[in-house]
């Protein structure tokens, strides 16, 4: 390709940061080793993230250098860089704080935290107010911005602090205060806040989480680790797929698609190479279960990916992790290294003839990249824009090859199924939804955290298990399934937590969100925050979602202020039309569900009295 490149020169540090990414991928025996254009392009996001981590923003010189090394047109690289919230294209200080203002955090003092930050560091993004903080002895400047859900709702309010430099750092922590944020910006380590890890039945997904040191492969092995992998290698791919199919395991990423069917289709696809992808983008507001698995039992996720690779006949897996999970990133990276050293990844997995390796890829702040086809585009080095289905990923997924993509929790569930069999798996749960499920309980409950429970548990029991509402206040509503889910009213709390139970109640389990609002929480600002979320996270590709999410937020603003266009009823009709068109005509699930929670609130909670103007 004959490209015109930017003439700006990179700094030595920027050049080094990019060279390291390219060199690292070579020495990783990475897929990107191949000298073809596709492999180079797929290093675009890692290279941009390296620039961001080195300098705190992506400069013209840095981006221009990436384009020359990877042979990417500058306009396209700019299009990619400007897609992600964690990449800055204008100069910024090295230290930057992202403060969550999403649903759970705004119920836990996020507004006060931002006010305190504003006093100390000035307005968000306002360069003239950037205060000095001291990073490792050097005075640097700092600034902050608000952020959507950081996946730490169980420890709300949450913050993510990044400090750029030659040894960059990133810390995400709950229980955030202005003092802690300032300390983190100055490079000090913040003590993690605590949260509940509980089960009221068999502890399968949470067998080790919180109990076994997750940084040591020997301890993982001492607690049942790799038993499933050994068994799978002995069973053979067909038997593994049969066991997963028999277990009726359904995807935990939101769509509940049968996993066995997915694996079978990939294993039978003619095209090669095939890929396995672990979807660890977890960005649905209120969701943090995958974070707990990735941080507290990383080997389990990687073992399950290896089994998936064996079952479908893939030699390579990618784990795509949201960029806001630095702790999970280091745990996974460490676990991959240990598995390679111990022979559980590489040319002969556990001494068998099966070759498999896993590459960790980081997102950069885009909820939409959790949508499977957007995730592929992101890994490939393109904007995270979903693609039309069909073709489905099982036929044409990552790099247009057959791909088995699964959620973290889905994969984790496979270990029990392979080790103990489908019948044992079904000993918990209901006939329609066998097994156990993780729920992310947050908001106004005594013990927020992740709860493993057999399918079929009533919502009410789970809330009791989490200690109920502090102070015994009445529940106003529960947001079930996330921002793409819906609200349940106090009258609906007997809902049975299973796929069929949720369906018959007109709800969805979504990503396992159970966010509790007591009677003191103003509901309308929450609805508005949800509308704001979809407006911010729409990729912008298709008209119904790109413009529809803007109109939906404007409509809620009018309902909140009471200055409506023609009364509450008229606004309701307008929302119904918008919702219908977004559901019917949007390309992907984001637009298709952008009005779900809001419409459900209007249906079951009637937050807007008809008397409003």
């Amino acid at each position: 390709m004959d490209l015109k490149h930017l003439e700006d020169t990179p700094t030595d540090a920027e050049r080094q940061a990019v060279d390291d990414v390219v060199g690292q991928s070579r020495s990783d025996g990475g897929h990107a080793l191949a000298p073809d254009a596709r492999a180079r392009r797929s290093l675009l996001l890692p290279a941009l993230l390296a620039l961001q981590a080195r300098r705190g923003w992506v400069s013209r010189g840095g981006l221009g250098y990436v384009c020359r090394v990877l042979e990417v047109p500058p306009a396209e690289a700019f299009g990619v860089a400007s897609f992600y919230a964690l990449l800055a294209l204008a100069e910024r200080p090295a230290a930057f704080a992202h403060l969550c203002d999403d649903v759970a955090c705004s119920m836990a003092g996020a507004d006060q935290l931002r006010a305190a930050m504003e006093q100390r560091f000035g307005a968000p993004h306002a360069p003239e107010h950037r205060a000095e903080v001291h990073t490792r002895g050097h005075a640097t400047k700092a600034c902050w911005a608000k952020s959507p859900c950081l996946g730490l709702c169980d420890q709300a309010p949450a913050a993510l602090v990044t400090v750029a430099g030659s040894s960059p750092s990133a810390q995400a922590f709950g229980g955030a205060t202005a003092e802690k944020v300032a300390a983190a910006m100055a490079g000090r380590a913040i003590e993690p806040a605590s949260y509940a890890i509980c089960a009221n039945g068999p502890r399968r997904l949470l067998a080790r989480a919180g109990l076994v040191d997750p940084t040591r492969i020997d301890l993982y092995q001492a607690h049942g680790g790799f038993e499933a992998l050994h068994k799978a290698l002995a069973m053979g791919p067909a038997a593994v797929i049969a066991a997963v199919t028999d277990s009726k395991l359904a995807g935990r990423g939101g769509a509940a698609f049968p996993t066995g069917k997915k694996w079978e289709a990939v294993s039978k696809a003619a095209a090669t190479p095939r890929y396995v992808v672990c979807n660890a983008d977890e960005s649905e507001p209120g969701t943090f279960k995958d974070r707990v698995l990735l941080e507290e039992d990383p080997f389990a996720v990687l073992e399950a990916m290896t089994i998936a690779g064996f079952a479908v006949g893939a030699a390579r897996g990618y784990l795509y992790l949201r960029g806001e999970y630095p702790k999970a990133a280091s745990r996974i990276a460490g676990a991959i290294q240990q598995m390679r050293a111990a022979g559980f990844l590489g040319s002969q997995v556990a001494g068998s003839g099966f070759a498999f390796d896993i590459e960790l890829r980081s997102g950069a702040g885009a909820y939409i990249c959790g949508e499977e086809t957007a995730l592929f585009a992101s890994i490939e080095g393109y904007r995270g824009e979903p693609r039309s289905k069909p073709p489905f990923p099982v036929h044409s997924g990552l790099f247009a090859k057959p791909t088995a993509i699964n959620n973290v929790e889905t994969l984790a569930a496979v270990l029990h199924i392979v080790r103990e069999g489908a019948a044992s798996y079904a000993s918990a749960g209901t006939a329609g939804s066998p097994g156990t499920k993780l729920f992310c309980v947050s908001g106004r409950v005594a013990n927020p955290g992740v709860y493993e429970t057999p399918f079929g548990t009533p919502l009410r029991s789970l809330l009791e298990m989490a200690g109920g509402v502090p102070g015994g206040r009445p529940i106003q509503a529960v947001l079930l399934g996330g921002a793409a889910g819906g609200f349940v009213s106090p009258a609906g709390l007997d809902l049975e937590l299973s796929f069929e139970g949720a369906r018959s109640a007109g709800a969805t389990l979504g990503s396992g969100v159970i966010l509790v609002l007591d009677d003191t929480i103003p509901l309308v600002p929450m609805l508005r925050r949800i509308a704001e979320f979809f407006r911010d996270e729409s990729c912008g590709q298709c008209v119904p979602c790109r413009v529809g999410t803007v109109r939906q937020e404007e409509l809620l603003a009018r309902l909140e202020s009471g200055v409506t266009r023609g009364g509450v009823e008229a606004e309701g009709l307008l929302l119904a039309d918008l919702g219908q068109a977004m559901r019917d005509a949007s390309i992907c699930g984001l637009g298709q569900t952008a009005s779900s929670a809001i419409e459900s609130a209007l249906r079951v909670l009637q937050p807007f009295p008809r008397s409003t103007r």
Partner: protein
Amino acid sequence: MTQAPPKSVNMRIDGHEVSVPEGSTILDACRKLAVETPTFCWAENLTPVNVCRICVVELEGARTLVPACSRKAEPGMSIRTDSARVRLSRKVVLELLGSSVDMSLSETFAKLKSQYGADPDRFGPRAPRAAAGEREAAEPGHHEVPDGSAAASVGQPVKVDNELFVRDYEKCMLCYKCVEACGTDAQNTFAIAVAGRGFDARISTEFNASLPDSACVFCGNCVGVCPTGALMFKSESDLRERGEWDESKQTVTDTICGYCGVGCQLTLRVQDNRIVRVTSPSDHSVTGGHLCIKGRFGSTFVEGDR
């Protein structure tokens, strides 16, 4: 080597049986039956991006509507092109476009707006234009929280940074056609791409550079495919600005470009003895609708008032 005859696919559209060659789209099948199906982002000489969603139709058994322009015909499909769901989605898509983009130069839009009874004003008065540079400064994941009194739009000043064509992104519906024409579908120059996210997504060069500072070679192929008049010849834009654009005084002539021996067909639109627009038919065997700077601008540049 003999080729097997293409297989055909039988399906139903609005109750009528139709048979199309394998690989055809639902749109192809609709056209074969002369069922009118609107399109904005589709073009015969570009890869379908299916982003505007005006072409959606109802496929029996599918949860959502499907885009006719890109969804492949499959045996046994049953399609409705005029159901209540289809009409509602098309109407709302028109309203969303009309409330956020200046669609005044699109004849297709005007026709569809009355056909579907679309009322873009349902969302309130159009918000004032952004100042120059404001939309480019938006950061992904952040926006000014609205009060709902006005409908946000992509309004902004026209970008005039060269003598050949202007970019009035207030008229940009983000159909991706210009990006495709500048990229692998025709020009392979990659001077422009989509930047930003969500409602702040926009067509842009790297770091919003002016076209002369970018990779642009001024082939004008992006101008040739733009459906809304967002990209416009400077000659045409100047006349319109002075209120002198007058289609009744214009003639259209076909000729072969004389700059080189390739033989591109040019369609010249002339007003007052001056060439005001140069295009090429999108089904022409040599050009596929695309030209180079000489054919596209040679004549206007020579004759235009500079």
